């Protein structure tokens, strides 16, 4: 058996682009992000999904009613990233958080930045910060910050 230090080791990179079909509901959601608005869909029982869902996962009802939610919300859960890696979009310590936007009954996964870990807790009020350029992508929301 070779000494492990003699073993060959090489970096590999697997990268590719693909196009994802957004469908009728998510298309509206992304379009609205380009106008700095966050949309959700409302079920007949009054439950609001944001990010907008095409179907209610429990009742399988097709969701067509569009409502605007946010831009403020509350942190439901979060993971603090003390040492961002090269693929993270934020280079300073930040949190990935599940954010329940005002008017919504479900959570959106996004980032909370410009704060310390100690400032953040479940229930913290946050608000969307918009990117300089809108591309109709989820990154049109640059990140969330604590409400002043």
């Amino acid at each position, binding site marked *: *058996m*070779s000494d492990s230090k*003699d*073993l*060959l*080791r*090489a*970096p*590999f*990179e*697997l*990268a*590719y*682009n*693909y*196009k*994802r*079909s*957004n469908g009728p509901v998510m*298309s*509206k959601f*992304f*379009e609205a992000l*380009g106008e700095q608005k966050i949309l959700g869909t409302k079920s007949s029982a009054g439950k609001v999904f944001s990010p907008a869902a095409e179907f209610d996962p429990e009742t399988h009802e097709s969701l067509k009613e569009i409502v605007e939610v946010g831009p403020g919300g509350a942190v439901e859960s979060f993971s603090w990233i003390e040492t961002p890696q090269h*693929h993270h979009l934020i280079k300073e310590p930040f949190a990935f958080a599940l954010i329940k936007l005002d008017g919504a009954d479900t959570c959106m996964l996004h980032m909370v930045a410009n704060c310390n870990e100690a400032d953040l807790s479940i229930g913290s009020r946050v608000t969307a910060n918009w990117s300089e350029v809108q591309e*109709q*992508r989820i990154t049109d929301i640059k990140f969330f910050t604590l409400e002043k």
Partner: protein
Amino acid sequence: MSAEDTPKDYSESPINLEYFYTAGSATTRFLNQVKEGNIVGQACPKCKAVYVPPRGSCPRCGVATDIEVPLTDKGCIESFTVVHIPIPGNPIVPPYVCAMIRLDGANISFLHLIQEVDIEQIRIGMRIQAVWKPKEEWTHSLENIKWFAPIDEPDIDVATLRFQEL
């Protein structure tokens, strides 16, 4: 994406994975030889099956394949696919042939490219030989072989390619 594409029907979803591959001791020995232009398989001490590329153990007998077996760069086509659909980023222009290559003396095959061939003529059992890159370009990779090309030798009897029971 152009402005005419609104409403946004598609999203670009880039995937990017970076990782380190660590070759085990068997693959390290194999690739060190490949860098020198040699193809060295490994044989099972029990059933004598020769594996190239070697993975270090015989899946049939569960023992280490510690017998090194130098092989030539000649063999035959065990199986092949004619690729007609272009893959984005792939510099090879279709149609081209990917084949499982069974080197002489080996009991398993590996995937490589076939070139310098009339696609109408390609067949299982066809004799082929490696076409190597210039020596100064050799690395620890089977890409040292540019592709395999047909040679003027009689086909292998297809029956000899079948799985050999112990």
